[in-house]
């Protein structure tokens, strides 16, 4: 597969940004080769801290660095990072520390390592914290812009990144805007809101559906929190059917947020695609097919929602 993993794009962006902004530091817990901060650490060793396999301490140190004026990127696998939810809740969120939390290896797409390494509930947990923004870019271009934005954002940010390579989905002239989604493909029969790794699959599904006479509007939700309410309501109002697509538990993630908003403001049938139950080891494509996150699975769900 061509394309680049969003974790790799993140690592490259951080090295570039680090040259311009002395305040940027990294804090890792023995996974810098996997979170891709290793290049930053090599270039700016005095600004990179590896605290060993101790994620709670890593998060707290990040909070302290932020309180002393640094801009820390605190990085681990999504599950290990957000698994220390109580530390994020108090030391980062309630303290309102300007920490950039970076969770890589999001979702079942990590494949063979299995459930214990898969971030599947991280968005649900962090969505419950009032002041934590959640960004989930879908390709290399968007990731680099999202990282640059995170530096500018005043307050806690969670950046959710993939292990696997991502095909380009955003136009070359794309500009990331916080809280704003992008219609990647206009349509009128159904709204498909996708985020992160499976966005490309949603586009593929839309192509397949078009051949079957179904016009799907595909939206890339790069900001998972806050939702782009305006765009969502406009699209759902037009199509009357919504399908959400994410590599995350179907409980509490993007789909949960979309369903919450629509049920209160514009009751619309919603089908949430994502992971049900625990993840498991396997090849990523097989896992996506099993959970209906591959192009064929997304197209099948859309047809079901439309009753065709």
């Amino acid at each position: 597969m061509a394309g680049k993993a969003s974790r790799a794009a993140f690592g490259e962006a951080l090295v570039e940004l680090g040259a311009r902004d002395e305040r940027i530091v990294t804090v890792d817990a023995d996974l810098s080769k996997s979170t891709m901060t290793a290049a930053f650490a090599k270039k700016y060793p005095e600004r990179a801290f590896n605290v060993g396999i101790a994620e709670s301490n890593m998060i707290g140190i990040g909070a302290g660095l932020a309180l002393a004026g640094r801009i820390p990127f605190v990085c681990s696998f999504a599950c290990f990072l957000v698994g220390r939810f109580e530390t994020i809740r108090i030391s980062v969120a309630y303290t309102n520390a300007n920490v950039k939390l970076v969770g890589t290896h999001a979702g079942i797409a990590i494949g063979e390592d299995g459930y214990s390494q898969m971030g599947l509930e991280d968005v649900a947990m962090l969505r419950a914290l009032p002041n934590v923004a959640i960004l989930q870019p879908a390709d290399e271009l968007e990731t680099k812009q999202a990282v640059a934005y995170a530096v500018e954002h005043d307050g806690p940010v969670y950046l959710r990144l993939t292990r696997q390579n991502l095909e380009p989905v955003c136009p070359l002239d794309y500009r990331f805007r916080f809280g704003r989604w992008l219609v990647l493909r206009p349509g009128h029969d159904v709204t498909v809101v996708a985020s992160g790794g499976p966005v490309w699959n949603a586009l593929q599904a839309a192509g397949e559906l078009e051949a079957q006479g179904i016009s799907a509007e595909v939206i890339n939700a790069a900001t998972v929190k806050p939702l782009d309410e305006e765009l969502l309501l406009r699209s759902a109002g037009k199509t009357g059917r919504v399908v959400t697509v994410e590599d995350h538990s179907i409980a509490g993630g993007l789909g949960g947020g979309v369903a919450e908003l629509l049920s209160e403001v514009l009751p619309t049938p919603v089908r949430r695609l994502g992971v049900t139950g625990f993840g498991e080891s396997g090849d990523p494509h097989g896992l996506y097919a099993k959970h209906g996150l591959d192009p064929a699975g997304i197209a099948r769900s859309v047809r079901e929602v439309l009753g065709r």
Partner: protein
Amino acid sequence: MADARLATIARECRVQIIRMLTHAGSGHPGGSLSVIDVLVSLFFARLRHDPARPAWADRDRVVLSKGHGVPALYAVMAKARYFDEARLPSLRKLGSPLQGHPDRTALPGIEAATGSLGQGLSIAIGEALGLRLAGSSARVYCVVGDGESQEGQVWEAAMSAPKLGQPAHPLDNLCVIVDYNKIQLDDFVARVLDLEPLVEKWKAFGWAVVEIDGHDFDQIAKALDQAEAIRGRPTVVVAHTVKGKGVSFMENDPAWHGKAPKPAEAVQAIREILGVAPSAWDAHLAADAPTRALVAELVGLGG
């Protein structure tokens, strides 16, 4: 001489702790009274700080990791004029910046949200590192509880502080003070999960360790002097304290970890803190108008 000044301030702060908790009807007197002498020593004889500029970048920081002791912190902050002492009775009341546990966003001068135990030392380490990176000479003090030291994150942090920043930025700008009052919520620490040998634990993790009586202002001052003089590594001061110190019926009783005194109990507590014999109390009140007004205020709460 410094001792007499600090002792006077600490006595006034103890009275305010009792006042606050009685108004609130809940809170943690035992651990507030055990840590107050350390906090008074920091705020009135140690910190480079400016209550008028709580966000001053080069201020010394105090992170109260044992956040339930925050009435003691509010008392010293009010005394240092971070805010008006008249606000102290709003502790734990709806809309008050004096939250039941520290809220950095609500009250300028609070360095971090704490109260979910075990988290403050990591934050203090991050601040110490950040200050070093910024070339600041400011120091960071972190007050950790003894029961709190059962939290794993405390030891993740303890393991990391002597190593992080080396060799260019050793964290000798960091000083931890353990408020070793020997009691936690359920029972005596030694009965719940003994910390001993505590000094040896910190030494083994690479810290300079000083052991003191945490109610002796001279010993506190000398320990903080030592901590400032030690180069190349952080210092921990293990301060032996008495839970509920200054109030006879609260001292060394786990029951007073987390309950507020009734007004009558509060009046007795204040009398003891001021060192007045029962037989001399009426005469004392007749001569001491502020205390007379305070007693009337608390008795007026009823119950």
